[in-house]
């Protein structure tokens, strides 16, 4: 029996750990306290407001995209909400579109078609390696330059169509026939001829339809004139739906439709588990979602009117407007983020064991079904964590709006409000807290989804 050798406190790992921690805590605490103290005295000395009194003061400036009511006599607090909602709109739409495009490009990178593969890699490499800011400036210019001024707006009726001559139509018809014949006879190079034929036949169909529109002229174009859709360099103007009394019934019917289709989905799943029989879930729920609101709409006397945009003075008044800044920002963010999402999708798919695909093929699943039912669900588990990161990046990158003048949170709140009030610390702190909260929220939602995907693994 030997007593353990006594070691000096300085060499005892527990003590050393405690000393390190206390030292760090003291240093960090001191720095924070010092910063706060300096900030208070500096702000007082420079007459910078140190409280949130400005929140309820009149803002006095206008914003060009307000999804909640706002005018120059609203408060700074209201301006904050306008900016936040604008950020959320861009981030939300951007995330959905970027996911779709990212998945398509990611799958394309693994396509058997050489050109599709190369297109996808050129896309990814080019967009990933050029700063987002440069891309945003490019899109903003690319949108503004070719579009006409309000007076020369493009509307449905002003797009004139050139008709194909008879020769084109004949050639197309022959091509379509050849394609059909090739497909039936399964000739060598069938795929080439089929594709050529399909392409030409599609063109022929399109031209045919267009010439029909052009010839029947009056009626069709007249209708288009009243569509009230105009495109110019101030944005895209569309009619604004105005809901009258009774529209809440339509909403209710829509809600009922959602509930019913969810219920049907659960039932169909249980039935498939029990009997192995599949039910047309998609068809039934589409019908429910469309038919129920339609019936309610008719029953409550069509409580819907449209406010049409009208050219008055310099610009269109009334209706809804989608600004070029919004389009440029969304486009830039979506295409940039899609390049990154494509890479995560590619690596996710590649992480799925090859045997899975082969087994699915052996079961007789088609390529598309293999991808949808076998490969992607497994790949999702690898994809989701980096995908979450990309969603967060997109949300954070939406702050680049400030460079092209889209009124997002940073532009309105950390820009104009900060300048007008001078309350730098409060404004920036609030902005950062908002983004942190958005990040946390997105992470939480994705974690929830991830748990579901992980459970499906069994």
């Amino acid at each position, binding site marked *: 029996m030997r007593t353990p050798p006594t070691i000096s406190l300085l060499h005892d790992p527990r003590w050393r750990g405690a000393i390190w921690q206390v030292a760090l805590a003291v240093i960090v605490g001191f720095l924070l306290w010092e910063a706060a103290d300096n900030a208070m005295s500096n702000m007082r000395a420079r007459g910078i407001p140190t409280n949130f009194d400005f929140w309820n003061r009149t803002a006095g400036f206008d914003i060009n995209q307000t999804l909640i009511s706002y005018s120059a006599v609203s408060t700074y607090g209201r301006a904050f909400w306008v900016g936040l909602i604008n950020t959320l709109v861009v981030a939300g739409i951007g995330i959905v579109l970027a996911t779709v495009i990212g998945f398509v490009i990611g799958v394309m990178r693994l396509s058997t078609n050489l*050109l599709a593969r190369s297109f996808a890699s050129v896309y990814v490499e080019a967009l990933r390696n050029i700063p987002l800011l440069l891309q945003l400036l490019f899109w903003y210019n690319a949108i503004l330059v070719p579009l006409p001024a309000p007076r020369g707006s493009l509307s449905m009726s002003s797009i004139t169509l050139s008709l194909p001559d008879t020769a084109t139509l004949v050639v197309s018809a022959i091509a379509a026939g050849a394609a059909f014949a090739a497909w039936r006879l399964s000739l060598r190079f069938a795929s080439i001829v089929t594709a050529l034929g*399909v392409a030409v036949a599609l063109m022929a169909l399109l031209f045919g339809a267009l010439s029909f529109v052009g010839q029947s002229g009056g009626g069709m174009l007249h209708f288009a004139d009243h569509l009230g859709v105009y495109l110019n360099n101030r944005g895209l103007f569309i009619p604004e739906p105005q809901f009258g009394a009774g529209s809440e019934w339509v909403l209710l019917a829509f809600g009922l439709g959602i509930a019913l289709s969810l219920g049907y989905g659960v039932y169909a799943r249980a039935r498939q588990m029990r009997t192995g029989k599949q039910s047309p879930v998609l068809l039934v729920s589409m019908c429910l979602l469309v038919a129920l609101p339609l019936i309610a709409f008719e029953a409550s006397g069509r409580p819907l009117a449209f406010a049409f945009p009208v050219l008055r003075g310099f610009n269109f008044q009334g209706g809804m407007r989608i600004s070029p800044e919004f389009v440029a920002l969304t486009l830039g963010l979506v295409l940039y983020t899609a390049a990154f999402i494509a890479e995560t999708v590619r690596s996710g798919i590649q992480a799925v064991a090859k045997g899975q695909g082969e087994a699915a093929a052996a079961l007789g699943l088609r390529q598309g079904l293999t991808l949808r039912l076998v490969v992607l669900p497994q790949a999702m588990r690898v994809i989701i964590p980096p995908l979450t990161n990309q969603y967060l990046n997109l949300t954070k990158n939406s702050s680049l709006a400030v460079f092209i003048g889209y009124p997002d949170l940073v532009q309105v709140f950390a820009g104009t409000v900060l300048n007008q009030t001078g309350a730098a610390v409060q404004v920036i702190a609030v902005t950062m807290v908002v983004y942190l909260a958005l990040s946390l929220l997105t992470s939480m939602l994705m974690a929830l989804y991830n748990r579901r995907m992980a459970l499906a693994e069994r």
Partner: protein
Amino acid sequence: MSFVRTIPSAPLPPPVEARGAVLWLRQNLLSGPFSALFTFSACAALLWLVPQLWHYFVADAVLSSPDGQACRQPGAGMCWSFIANKMEFFLYSSYPRDQVWRVNSCLVSGAVLITWLLWPSARSKRLGGALFFLVYPVACFWLLHGFEALSLRTVPTNLWGGIFVSLLVSLVGIVVSLPGGILLALGRRSQLPVVRFVSTLFIEFVRGVPFITVLFMANTMLPLFVPENWSPDRLVRPLIGVSLFASAYMAEVVRGGLQAMDKGQYEGAQALGLTWWQMMRLIILPQALTTVIPGIVNTFIGLFKDTTLVAVVGIADFLRTVETARLDPAWAGPTISTSGYVFAGLFYFVFCYGMARYSLLMERRLSSGRKR
């Protein structure tokens, strides 16, 4: 049995569609109707696009036009003479022209040191690292800013700008963020709760907010946080912001490397009786850092792209000089300003793509080493 063939007949060649060019075509371009459709539409798009690019960059490009007149002609392509004319401005902005050798020597030595550190088979990297992380920043600071005793006159930071500042911002970011990121990553994986908490809080906070707000904070709030007569220089503020930002991202990359480390390495080091710092310095970090070189390079690419945002706090980075050059009335014209942006796009692409290829190369080398 003469009807039985004793000599095997020569094998028949595979059918036409299963060999040679036809096979290749069928496999790569025409494997199905959709694939073929895509091939044809892509070819059509290329037929349209390639001549456009050819005209813009080669056929209609203006190579020399001292006054830019030729660039203003309708249908003029890339205005290379604008780029040539403004190249000095793009590179150095307003840095005094007779002093640019200082900038050049800094950039060249930086490039040499980085190559040294990144070259897979280079020797004595420890020395290179010491030079790059300790000596280089100080030396370059004195060189660029000025050192009266060596009769280098002071060049105030408000004259700094252009590509040089873009590179400077990224260099400062990498020089600070590597050590900073390693410390933060070690802190986040530490056994000590306070250390872990502080590191995690910092990392998650910085990663949760947009870079622009970090820049805003560095620019407007930092001067408030320090005593009144300490107010940092206008260029130093975004540099501090970039350093904080890059450190947090680097910390996550390094943490990935630490987590991927085999547990046996820790246990082995502890069994040898190494202290925690010795273990990290001699055993863990050298291995962990090597495995995350691709991640580090990718972080650097992101950082380099993000430097374009420093314009928001009034720093004349490369993109901002392109914008300023565009406003020169002598070179006003729609195609001329487009040329500036195209050039900027090419510049960033070449840089970032080059680094991305390097990162990929390292990834392959490392994984092949580990497979063994």
